[in-house]
Structure formats: C-alpha cells, structure tokens
C-alpha cells in the first residue's frame, strides 16, 4: 500500500490534497462510491449533505466531474437503455476508490491534529 506522501506524487491526488479543506471532491467521491449518479442528483446530494465547504452550484460540480474524469477517477456514460430522458451518469473507477481512500487518510490526519489542538486548548487555556 502506498503512503500518503507517495500518493501525493500522482497529479490527480496532489490536486485533491490541495483542495481537501473544501471537501468537495471527497464528497463527490463518497456519493459515487455508494452508487452511480448523474450531475443533477449529485448537486442535490452535495448541498443536502453539508459536507462541502463550497456551494455546489452546477458550474462547479460539472467542472469538477469533468476534471475527475480526465484524471481517471470517474467514468461517465449516457444512459441509453430506456426511453425518455437520458442523462450522463458517473461512476467511480478503481482509481476513484483509491482516491477516496486517500481522502479519508488526509481527513483522518486532519481530525487527529484538530483533536490534539482542542485538547491542548482545553487543558492549557480554558482550564488554566
């Protein structure tokens, strides 16, 4: 298994690491890991979840999805099986699953650091 540092050498992962605080890409990867979805539904899910620090407007979501596809994290295809409306559906690639694991590692590291910060604050400032 690659370390966080090794993963960050991958340009797609480096892009994610640079924006991890915004939480948009991890949120998209998370929803797509559950099941394939189209952009319209993802916009609704991202906004309802409150996980992302960025407002999930359509331009932002679709640009991120296109970039994730260029980076090989998601695969898109038009739903063509049924009659009626067809939309471009996105699903996670194996690289996308790795990227989600990478996000979880980054988030876990951050949570640990924040927890230490809170504990020190409690001990050294609040209770002093």
């Amino acid at each position, binding site marked *: 298994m690659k370390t966080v540092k090794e993963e960050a050498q991958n340009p797609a992962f480096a892009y994610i690491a640079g924006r991890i605080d915004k939480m948009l890409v991890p949120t998209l990867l998370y929803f797509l890991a559950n099941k394939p979805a189209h952009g319209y539904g993802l*916009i*609704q899910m991202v906004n*309802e979840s409150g996980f992302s620090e960025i407002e999930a407007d*359509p331009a932002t979501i679709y640009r991120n999805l*296109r970039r994730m596809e260029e980076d090989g994290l998601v695969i898109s295809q*038009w739903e063509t099986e049924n009659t*009626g*409306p067809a939309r471009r559906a996105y699903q996670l690639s194996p690289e996308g699953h790795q990227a989600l694991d990478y996000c979880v590692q980054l988030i876990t590291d951050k949570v640990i650091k924040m927890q230490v910060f809170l504990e020190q604050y409690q001990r050294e400032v609040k209770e002093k």
Partner: protein
Amino acid sequence: MSNPQTLKILHAGALRKPVVECAKLLHEARPGLDIQLESCGSRACARQVREGKVVDVLALADPMLFDELLGPEYVDKYYIFANDQIVLTYDEFSKGGGEIDAKNWFDILLREEVTFGRSNQHLDPCGYRTLIVWQLAEQYYGRPGLFGQLDQRCRGDLIYPKSYDLASDVLVGKLDYAFEYLCVVNQFGLRYLTLPEKINLSNPAHADYYRQSTVSLQGKNSGEMITIPGAPIEFAIAIPKNAENPALAKEFLDLMLSKKGQQILEDCGLIPY
C-alpha cells in the same frame, strides 16, 4: 424524397451558436453535407414537429417539452445535455445601468422611462421561466405585488416570440433590459446582472423552492391550458422518430454530446453535462 446528404436541424434560438459551431465541425468532416438550420422558440419548435414538420435533429430549451408535446408519438428518447440561468441583460446605454444591482433591479425596471422585455411564454420557455423568476422575486425580496407590477409594465411589443431576439434589441438600444439566458447574453457580449440563485432557476439544489411557482400555458390541444411548475433550466436534444436521415442525425447528436461538444457548449456560456 429526402436527400441523403441533407441534415435538417430545428433548434431553440438560445442554442444558435453551439448548434452552428457543431454544424461547422460536422461539415468539415463531411464537406458535401447540406446542413439546414432553423430556429424559433422551443414551444413553437415542438408544435411545428407535432403539426408535421420533418426534421432530423430537434434541440430544445426545455426537456419537459419532449414529454409534454412530443412523446411518445414523435420522440421516444432525448438527451439532457446542459444547464443555464436567467439573467437580466443590458448595455452601457441602458437607463439606470450604472446603478443596477441584485437588490434594486426591480425598482429600476419599474421606473417610467425604462423599457424591458421578455419572450412569449406560449412560444418560448424563456418566457415562462421569466414569469416564474418574477413570482419567485416577489417572495424572495418580500415585495407583495411585484409580479403584477412587472407584468403590467411588460406588455404588447415588449413580449417577443423568442428570447434570442431580445438580446439583439438590447444590443441596438430598442430595449434597456431583457430577461435572457446567460448563454445568449455571452453570445452577444452584453452586460448582465446575475440574479440570486434562489430565483434564477440555475441550481437543482433549489428545485423544491422553484417548484412553488407556476405558470399557465396553452397545452397540446387548442383551448387547453396546462400548469407548469418552476424548475432548473436545462436543454435537451433528440432525433425525432420520423427523421429522414437518422444516421446523420446521430453523428450530429454524438458530436454535441462529445467532449468536443462539451467544450463548444462551455465556450458559448452553457454548463455542459
């Protein structure tokens, strides 16, 4: 008898530029191909097909029209390919243009000397979407009666058959302002005011909020009225069942939906799916 080298495309006026750009690309790949483009308001486009007009590709500014007016007799599958928003467009000479913002636009429009236009809701989705925007604005800004005031001021010649013509009349100074798709405004290089997301019909995250407002429109049959709820703005494309050149139509449709097509749509100010 159809010419195997002719591709007939009927499209929403708002899609003029991306359709032309994709048609040029297809023409480069097939120099002998005769591509015939025609545009009007999307409801009018759909009605023409219902009344017997034969086209190979139909690109409309509201996916709902395929279900409401064309399915399943004329179209059984359509592709929802892009998103947009309603903005208030103007130019450097529009009265009040120097002071307009997202909090005072309706007060400026209601000034005696100011003219503003919208498209006809029975012919063009931009028209009924504008009426929805006004209703939502009344609620959003807490201004009871705002819809009626705007509606009263925008009558007769200020209601256009298709939204594309509104932008050209703002450009030549016949109108101070118009309610328009952002993609059309970009195609004309006009100034515009972005309206709040909760009223500009851009974001699926606000779909439930948009749905609170409705408009009444002429339905499928003469004299019939239907009620349309507000919804996020989307565009869709289809190959009608009676297309004379479905293979060519599919080439065009595949191009519009391809990565290259996405780039063209984005360059024209749309948000491609």
